[in-house]
């Protein structure tokens, strides 16, 4: 299996949870165990463009209980003999090996996954700033020798890139340090926010400079937050920015 594998360095490991649940896209070669017409394969693939049930395979790193996963799209690409090539966009945690097996069952002839390449993991895609392990080694050495920061900024992306698909809430400088200390985000601190936030959904708290402050669980929708004057709008779940980056602007209870 090859393809997009986001690598999180040091502090950015904190956003792994956001990446794990993000959607994925794969290009897959499926080997059919019988002779099936192209149109039949195309038809059956489309039937899987739905919410499907999967039990994680024997060799899996999660509990083996039946679970549902969304298949956003399956596009048939081409066929050569008994090899069928398709592209699939799916929810994180979908087992493509299982998917191929199940497609084979519906086709009646059986099938297995022959080859797999991940073309997307959340916001990271195959043809945008992708580097091989060799590129990493070479670029790092080149950067150390030439001290040209352009090299560094080319093969490493800021961790904010990993949060590109998470709806954002931009906050005032004066609200930043409280959130860094784990405080929940309240309405007066909010400057702007993206559409599509719902009560209970994950949101990313950002500064006006575009720095990530924390991952939070929204306690109201975008529309509700826009009209709120006080009260908690999001519960801080994972602080990403170190304390003291911005000045402390709140008064402690006693003093």
């Amino acid at each position, binding site marked *: 299996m090859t393809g997009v594998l986001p*690598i999180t360095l040091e502090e950015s490991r904190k956003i792994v949870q956001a990446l*794990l649940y993000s959607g994925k896209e794969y290009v897959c070669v499926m080997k059919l165990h019988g002779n099936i017409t192209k149109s039949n394969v195309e038809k059956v693939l489309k039937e899987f463009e739905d919410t499907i049930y999967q039990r994680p395979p024997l060799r899996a790193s999660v509990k083996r209980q039946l679970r549902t996963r969304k298949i956003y799209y399956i596009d048939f690409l081409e066929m050569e003999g008994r090899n069928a090539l398709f592209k699939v966009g799916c929810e994180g945690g979908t087992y493509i090996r299982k998917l191929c097996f199940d497609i084979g069952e519906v086709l009646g002839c059986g099938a297995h996954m022959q080859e797999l390449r991940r073309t997307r993991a959340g916001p990271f895609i195959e043809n945008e700033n992708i580097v091989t392990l060799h590129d*990493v080694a070479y670029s790092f050495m080149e950067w150390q020798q030439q001290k040209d920061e352009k090299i*560094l900024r080319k093969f490493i992306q800021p961790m904010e890139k990993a949060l590109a698909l998470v709806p954002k809430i931009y906050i005032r400088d004066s609200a930043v340090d409280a959130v860094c200390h784990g405080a929940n985000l309240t309405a007066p601190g909010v400057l702007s926010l993206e559409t599509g936030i719902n009560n209970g959904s994950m949101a990313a708290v950002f500064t006006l400079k575009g720095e990530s402050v924390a991952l939070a669980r929204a306690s109201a929708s975008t529309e509700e937050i826009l009209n709120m004057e006080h009260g908690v709008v999001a519960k801080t779940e994972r602080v990403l920015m170190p304390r003291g980056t911005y000045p402390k602007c709140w008064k402690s209870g006693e003093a």
Partner: protein
Amino acid sequence: MPRSIAPWEIKRKLLVKAEDKTNPRYGHIPEDRPAEEYMRYGVINLDKTAGPTSHEVAAWVKRILNLRQVGHGGTLEA
């Protein structure tokens, strides 16, 4: 039944609630972080080759970049 929309197909709009400015003395625009900090708050979009596991690849990156902790976003195990 219409198919579900993939997360990357969702178009979001930014709605403004209040206006304010940010003080340039604090923090950094992510792209302008000082080199060492940039690295510690960085992510690599790696093209994994066949063979090594995702875990092994992460360990190699850690050694190459001489960092203490490196992780990966989702095992590429299918």
